């Protein structure tokens, strides 16, 4: 399941809900990845735009990949502003076996960074500045140039 929230994530509550959702599913391994806004470059926080239709289909494709390995994934992300030391992102894998879970969380998070249609902005001095230098062009970009 994919969950989008306005503003910062309530990490303890989400980690607890996901754990309890799968308490009887007989998964041996649960690995959440939690992303938190770091203080760097003098920012006050970050802000996010999300394009939901493509995010949903990206997430569904990863759910199918997980299913093929007997695993499931869950993800939460913030929309809008998230301030320093607040969290904006959780991705999690549940799997019967630890090797599958450890490998899958890595692939899933890396592809998220490279492909998920989410745009990040620095909040700095009251401005919202697109973080181009930390962004990745989606595979196949540039076909219109």
């Amino acid at each position, binding site marked *: 399941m994919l969950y989008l929230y306005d503003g910062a994530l309530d990490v303890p509550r989400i980690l607890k809900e996901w754990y309890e959702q799968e308490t009887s599913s007989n998964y041996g391994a649960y690995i959440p990845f939690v992303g938190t806004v770091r203080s760097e470059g003098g920012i006050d926080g970050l802000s996010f735009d999300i394009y939901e239709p493509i995010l949903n289909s990206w997430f569904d494709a990863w759910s199918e990949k997980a299913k093929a390995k007997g695993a499931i994934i869950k993800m939460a992300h913030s929309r809008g502003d998230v301030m320093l030391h607040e969290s904006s992102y959780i991705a999690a894998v549940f799997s019967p076996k630890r090797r599958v879970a450890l490998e899958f969380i890595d692939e899933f998070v890396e592809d998220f960074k490279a492909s998920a*249609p989410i745009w*990040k902005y620095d909040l700095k001095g009251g401005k919202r500045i697109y973080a181009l230098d930390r*962004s990745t*062009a*989606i595979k196949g970009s540039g076909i*219109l*140039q």
Partner: protein
Amino acid sequence: MVRVEFLGPIQKEPLELYITNLNELAEILKKDATMQEWLENSAVAVNDTLVSSRDFPLKDGDRVALLPPVCGG
């Protein structure tokens, strides 16, 4: 008619165009000086599916989106 949307940080209002493929869209957008950089680094989706060729045909009612570089998390 085809609707073209510019996502995330691209500051451009949607267009409604009579075009039949992405080549025609490219020709139109290249005339917009503010779009030069975005054309280099943006991906293109038709009806919310990413496409990899500029020859992709478009039909009446299609929705095209330009997706600039991403950074979730």
